[in-house]
């Protein structure tokens, strides 16, 4: 009888100790945010375009972490889907057409003659890439523009175009021909 009593006592004491240790660890070593969300967020293109149906890349990353589909990001395209599939350990899927198609990287361009200075595009830009003030001409900081398209709709005079991002020689791919070839005689 006493054996049972002591063994139960020992177990109870152990359980208390481990419980206390685990409880302490869960408070002391608490991870502030979900690291998976940050990892997913790091793979997303950060255009903040909202084409996935979420208000930005971070919310979509959270949604993916909670089991949403990984093929809703047109700016990231197949490469992002592949990376996400690797990270999440699922099969890569083709891009969900409902959210848009993969396109060349574009940047916004404001036709400055037509701009009336309404600041609506400035408010729409998720990365503060548009410069300007009320009743003054606005312009896009090309280096900061993510090509998210969000400034196009609010423009009351439709003076914003999405143009292919300028390429430079540094990252020129050798199979691209940028100028028409001229035959010399």
């Amino acid at each position, binding site marked *: 009888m006493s054996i049972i009593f002591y063994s139960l006592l020992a177990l109870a004491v152990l359980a208390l100790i481990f419980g206390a240790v685990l409880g302490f660890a869960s408070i002391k070593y608490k991870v502030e945010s979900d690291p998976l969300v940050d990892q997913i*967020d790091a793979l*997303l*293109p*950060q*255009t*903040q375009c909202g084409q996935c149906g979420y208000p*930005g*890349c*971070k919310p979509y990353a959270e949604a993916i972490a909670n089991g949403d589909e990984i093929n809703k990001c047109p700016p990231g395209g197949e*490469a992002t889907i592949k990376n996400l599939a690797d990270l999440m350990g699922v099969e890569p899927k083709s891009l969900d057409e409902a959210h848009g198609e993969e396109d060349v990287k574009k940047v916004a361009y404001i036709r400055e003659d037509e701009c009336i200075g309404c600041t609506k595009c400035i408010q729409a830009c*998720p*990365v*503060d*890439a548009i410069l300007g003030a009320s009743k003054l001409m606005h312009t896009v900081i090309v280096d*900061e523009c*993510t090509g998210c398209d969000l400034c196009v709709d609010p423009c009351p005079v439709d003076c914003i175009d999405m143009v292919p991002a300028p*390429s*430079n*020689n*540094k*990252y*020129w*791919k*050798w*199979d*691209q*021909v*940028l*100028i*028409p*070839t*001229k*035959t*010399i*005689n």
Partner: protein
Amino acid sequence: MQSDLTLLEQVKSGKIWGFPGGIHPPERKHLSNQTPIAQANLATHYYVPVKQHSGKEGEVLVKLGDKVLKGQPLTKPSTGLSLPVHAPTSGEVKEIKPHISAHASGAPELTLIIEADGKDDSVPAQPFNDWQAPETDALIEHIKSMGIAGLGGAAFPTYIKAHPAHDIELLIINAVECEPYITADDVLMRYHAEEIIEGVEILLHTTGAKLCLFAIEDNKPEAIEVIKKACEHKNNIDVRVVPTKYPSGGEKQLIQLLTSQQVPSKKLPIDLSIVMQNVGTAFAIKKAVIDGLPLTERVVTVTGESITNPQNLWTKLGTTVEDLVAQCGITAEKDQRLIMGGPMMGFNILDSQMPVVKATNCILAPSKYHVPPRGVEQACIRCGDCAAACPAELLPQQLLWYSKSQEHEKLEEYDLFDCIECGACAYVCPSQIPLVQYYRNSKAEIRQAEEDKAKAEKARIRFEQRQARLEREKQARLKRHQEAAERRRQALNQDDSAKDKIAAALARAKAKKQQQSEAPKETGKLEDTSTAVDNSTDAAPNQAIDPKDKVAAAIARAKAKKEQKAKQALENSKSEQAPYAESKSSPTHEAQEQATDEKTPEQIKKERVAAAIAKAKAKKAKESSNENEQAAADKSTMTEESITDKQDVDASESQALKTPEQIKKEKVAAAIAKAKAKKQQAKHNADTLTEQGNE
């Protein structure tokens, strides 16, 4: 790890090691090295790109229409890796605009277009006489201001390599020129050996190297001979003749050939205390330092089977390919290709207006027979020839697979970035796979991906900061609104005039209502009320005051306040206004007014409702009392209550500074009391009437 001493000892033994791989393509150098260096004709227009070196472009110093002289700097180096460019001849700056660049892409770059005036006048030479002084900073600055860049092909600014932060043991002069067809360095050595050795001595001085190795491939016997003769009495310059093999002119390959050391992956020769300079650069340094001439021309080989007179030309930088080729003559075959650089590493010239820049060493117009165009790509048969040919000991097949499937991580794992793009693998490939193209694309993709990632990170930070800013602004707005509301409330509490206005408005509204409600009964009951006033006890005065009087008083007060406010402008201290208000208001109102002071609009409203109800009750009671006498007993009890209530009313008058709720209750009670008193009075009157009647 070998010490530097052993490095020098090893090197001094004169041994030539080797490097793995390599190929032996037909050299075809005899086409262009048979004649001395000719002078290119003076063209009408020169297209001088602002950026002709690796690094950053300088600031443009000239304006449209400026007259420039030969050797005049056109740009000023900006911060970082930057070099100036100089006018190649005298003339006028006609245009400053993007023009086809001397790059495989031909992507337009900012170019100064100079119209030559034909005189070719130059600015005075600025020789640096005291170059042997121990302090080399001024000399380095001079080399920089003369715009000297590596003339071997990469056009890396020479002043950086001429004055390395690292201690240098060994200087290697690269005169290997392993690429087929090109003979620019060969003829330069043949005709300017002495000057080259002078340049080498300047480089030895600036770098502090103990030994210079002058490496020449053994297919240039004439050059070897003159160079050996030129440095006969220089005991710190050794000529090394290396066997002909492509790509022994590659920086890392040549180091391996001469020192047996491999430059580690992602490291530079400088980490081995070695610096390498092209022979043309040494000559340009001599010209800049001793003759005082900036880099405005270089030797360019114009060669190929289709060129009528293949030769080497002193070509001013900015000369178009068209002008050069026209001078040498061309018999173009069908689909004639023009290549800038050699057949192995050069690129197709997309537009004949492409200018010659500091890095341009050859314009090649080969025949299809000798340099066949790229054939149709076949599947890789895994023969392994490419791996055998690779001088960097990479695995070209694996790199091809991963390039095709865009597995960037794998590519980096297989050291794609150690590929020197020499093209040996593609040259030996039986399936005619353009391997180097794949590698170049993959490199570009990886760099692009890295840049995109950096950009995405930047965008994320900007997005998050924007969100934070919006949140901050929202909070600030909210706080501002709250503060404004608080201020309004305080102002309401402090400012009597506002309260009085409200009180006045309330009083007006009350009066109106009362008037309306009293209108019907006024006809008959006015007398009764007046008698009641006389008969009533303590509560009577409070009640008896005509509402109209109250209204009048309140309005008067409000008006007075307004006037005062207008007078005192911003001054709204209570202490001044309160007595003023008191003096105007009758003592009976004082309590009420003070009570109103502490009331919120809701309370006032309630009070009004209570008053209205009371009035309505009174009216009903009057009517009922007039008609009905049966309720006499009940009412007498009520009268008793009303007496106690009346006392309460007195209390409310005296204890004005009670909490709003109490005051409210009191007010309600007072109102009820008033109503009851009225009723009682009415009843009393009726009673007396009936009594009188009975009597």
